[in-house]
């Protein structure tokens, strides 16, 4: 981290100020509020790794909090083990549990993931109550009051403040690390468009698991700390839906998927509710919850992206006027990635599909299709709409598993492999585009391409350099800082190609990249495809624009009603009576 950048030093100063304020104020109540703010901000930041970065809306995070609380307390009561060790043990246990809980639930979307996470929370809470011999049941457990650093129990308030600040710092550091790493980009990619992420080699399950494990670990440490701070735990309070909702809410109010958002959300809302509780006494019984609910609804209706999402850019620009601001350095495009290599295996098969069959229920969507793509070659795939071209593509890139038949790829080491998942296909050297473009809409063009580049490097700077190089090849250089959703249709199609190219594919599957383009864009794109081929990439392209297919393809394959009608040189294929019949009907076959 560069400390002379205004955004960085301002953030650090504000954090330190928050630490100093209660010490100067000195009142126990202020201490208490800040200890709560720090620890809840840590919880919200930890939740944000899953709920924000990974976009998995968990409303059961109290499970991990509770595991931390109970592990530390039980180890202390039964074995006299220091809660510092208990904290680590609890965090490890929570991480393991998080894998078992989340893995089966990843295929659930939106509300259903949330419901499943609530169900898991309920099950755990009921089981903890049920095992009263071990856990004290619903009555809960009191933490033995042994004072001292090793027991995490103190007479004064300031050590608690320091510990909670430490937990918050750890959570923030981890968030910051994730956000600026390959993992952070991958999480956003999986959240925004899982298919597009798979196509550039992202193992979606592994990435989401990483987020869940990190989040559970951090959440659990706060649970252990809270047990020692409150010196009492009970299932109703630690395994509570209310707590889960609260921490998710703080993150949302501040801004999902941002680093500072969860902290800002907590700082603004938590003291408000706590103060109300203090002032209003008994009446406040439901009042702070009521405030939480109302604030949540208002935020969702007015600034759904949260405070940081809504105002962050503007505030950031203001802060950057402070002394010390430096523009991010421009990265020179790399030249190594796509340079033409004189391959010795040019002209030999690189992708072989044999006897592919695919059934969707009763529909025979792919009927005995065999294809061989040779290195350095362009094959154009044509056929009427609904003929099953994209279905074949999906089998060649791992998005569909053929009912029978095989797809083999020759790797750069010369071995033949049959990958099993889209990500493995990508790693074996297949890049693909989607007929319906799938940009990561809220990211910049540069970031979109970088996600492709991360397949071969985990270094930020290198990924930027590859992005710059690929952008040159695809005429996107002057659009690099544009947000992807603002691109024209032609730009989006080129972005599809660019992102695939950034993975350094040896085989590129292009699915109608010219459809819907205007004539000048088509000329541009044809030129680009030719350039790509000249870098040594073999290309299989589905295309309806005959001008392009005829001028680019070495071979043309015609697919009709799921089966391969004919394959051969372009001139021969278009004159074939069967092909004419497929497109125009029988009466034209003699025309």
């Amino acid at each position, binding site marked *: 981290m560069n400390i002379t950048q205004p955004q960085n030093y301002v953030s650090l100063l504000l954090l330190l100020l928050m630490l100093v304020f209660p010490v100067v104020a000195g009142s126990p109540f202020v201490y208490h509020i800040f200890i709560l703010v720090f620890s809840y901000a840590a919880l919200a930041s930890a939740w944000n790794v899953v709920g924000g970065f990974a976009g998995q*809306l968990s409303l059961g995070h109290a499970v991990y909090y509770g595991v931390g609380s109970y592990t530390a307390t039980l180890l202390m009561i039964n074995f006299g083990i220091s809660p510092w060790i208990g904290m680590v043990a609890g965090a490890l246990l929570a991480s393991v549990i998080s894998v078992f809980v989340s893995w089966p639930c990843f295929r*659930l979307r939106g509300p259903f993931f949330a419901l499943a996470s609530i169900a898991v929370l309920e*099950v755990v809470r009921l089981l903890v109550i049920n095992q009263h011999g071990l856990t004290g049941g619903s009555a809960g457990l009191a933490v033995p009051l042994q004072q001292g650093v090793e027991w995490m129990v103190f007479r004064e308030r300031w050590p608690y403040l320091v510990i909670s600040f430490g937990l918050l710092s750890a959570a923030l550091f981890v968030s910051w690390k994730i956000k600026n790493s390959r993992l952070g980009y991958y999480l956003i990619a999986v959240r925004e468009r899982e298919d597009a992420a798979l196509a550039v080699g992202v193992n979606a399950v592994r990435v989401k698991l990483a987020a869940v494990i990190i989040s559970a670990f951090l959440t659990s440490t706060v649970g252990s700390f809270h047990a020692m701070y409150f010196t009492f735990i009970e299932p109703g309070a630690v395994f509570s839906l*209310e707590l889960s909702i609260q921490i998710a809410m703080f993150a949302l109010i501040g801004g999902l998927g941002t680093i500072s958002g969860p902290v800002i959300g907590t700082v603004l809302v938590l003291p408000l509710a706590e103060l109300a509780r203090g002032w209003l006494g008994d009446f406040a019984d439901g009042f702070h919850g*009521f405030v*939480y609910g109302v604030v*949540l609804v208002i935020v969702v209706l007015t600034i759904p992206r949260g405070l940081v999402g809504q105002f962050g850019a503007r505030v950031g620009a203001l802060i950057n006027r402070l002394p010390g601001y430096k523009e991010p350095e421009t990265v020179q495009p790399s030249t190594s990635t796509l340079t033409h290599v004189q391959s010795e295996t040019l002209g030999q098969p690189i992708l072989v599909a044999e006897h592919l069959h695919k059934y969707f229920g009763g529909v025979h969507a792919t009927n005995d299709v065999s294809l061989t793509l040779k290195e350095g070659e362009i094959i154009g795939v044509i056929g009427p709409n609904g003929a099953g071209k994209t279905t074949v593509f999906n089998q060649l890139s791992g998005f569909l598993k053929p009912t029978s038949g095989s797809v083999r790829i020759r790797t750069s080491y010369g071995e033949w492999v049959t990958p099993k998942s889209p990500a493995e296909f990508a790693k074996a050297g297949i890049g693909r585009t989607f007929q319906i473009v799938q940009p990561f809409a809220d990211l910049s063009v540069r970031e979109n391409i970088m996600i492709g580049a991360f397949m071969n490097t985990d270094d930020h700077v290198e990924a930027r350099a590859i992005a710059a190089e690929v952008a040159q090849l695809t005429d996107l250089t002057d659009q690099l800082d544009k947000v992807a959703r603002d691109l024209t249709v032609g730009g989006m199609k080129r972005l599809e190609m660019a992102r695939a190219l950034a993975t350094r594919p040896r085989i590129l599957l292009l699915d109608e990249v010219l459809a819907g383009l205007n004539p000048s864009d088509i000329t541009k794109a044809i030129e680009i495809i030719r350039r790509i081929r000249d870098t040594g990439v073999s290309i299989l392209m589905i295309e309806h624009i005959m001008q392009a297919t005829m001028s680019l393809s070495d071979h043309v394959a015609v697919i009709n009603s799921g089966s391969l009608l004919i394959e051969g040189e372009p001139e021969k294929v278009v004159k074939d009576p069967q092909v004419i019949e497929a497109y125009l009907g029988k009466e034209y076959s003699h025309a």
Partner: protein
Amino acid sequence: MEIFLQLLINGLMLGGTFAIISIGLTLIFGIVRVVNFAHGEFLMIAMYGVYLMNLQFGLHPYVAMLPMFFLMFALGAVMQRYIIQPLLSASDEIQIFATVGVSTALMNAGLMVFGADVYSVDMSSAVVGTGMTSIGSLTINNGQLMTFIVSILLIGALDWFLKYTFLGRAIRATAQHRDAALLMGVDVKKIYIIAFGLGAGCLGLAGGLMAPQYPVFPTVGTFFVLTAFIIVVLGGLGSLHGAFLGALIIGVVDSLAGYYIAPDLKEVVYFSIFIAILIFRPTGLFGAGRGSE
């Protein structure tokens, strides 16, 4: 065997209560495609409403549930118009947070207004909805029987309404494809308001039917809503008949597991069923739902 039969009857009767709560939830999801996390708090409001009407005007809960239907309809319509409608094209998370926010606010508002005390409708002078009916050695709670019968009638009525009335057809069209319905001249926003109102209105009936057996307290919604979610997912989201069958299944599971396993573990049993269904059969047991993937 006798115990088993009695447990089975208890389970089915409990299922009737679960059904009347779940119908509205599945209706709203099936049409508006929003999972309403505030459903339980709507139930709480209906129960307090029935309690107050009984206290103030001496209305029998079965009478009070009729005005309550319309009040709840209005509440649902307002929620749809001012909270859900602006968020229809927002992402799932935002919609969830909105209904969760409403749920939190309403539950705590209940706590502020009524306190944490438990209130029951005074049924001591009522004739209908109390007591037991005996068939041989088996007994049935009259109030629960009434709930069971009404839930069947309600499903029948909704079914008829959706299939054979003009408005019902428009609702089904909207449920199947929002944009296509819009193109056919259906006022989709109005349909959603009506659908949400109907779903909430069902809870008005539930509030009245449950009053003889269940007390009301601020968190009563949470107590029932998780079960309702399980039932609705089990029966296939959006399916009325599925919800009814799901309710009977969970009712019986509740009753049997409470006796044969342990009273405090019966929820563990049906939450586990819930998680398994979500993972392995996301379209519900009968494959009638919209799926959770």
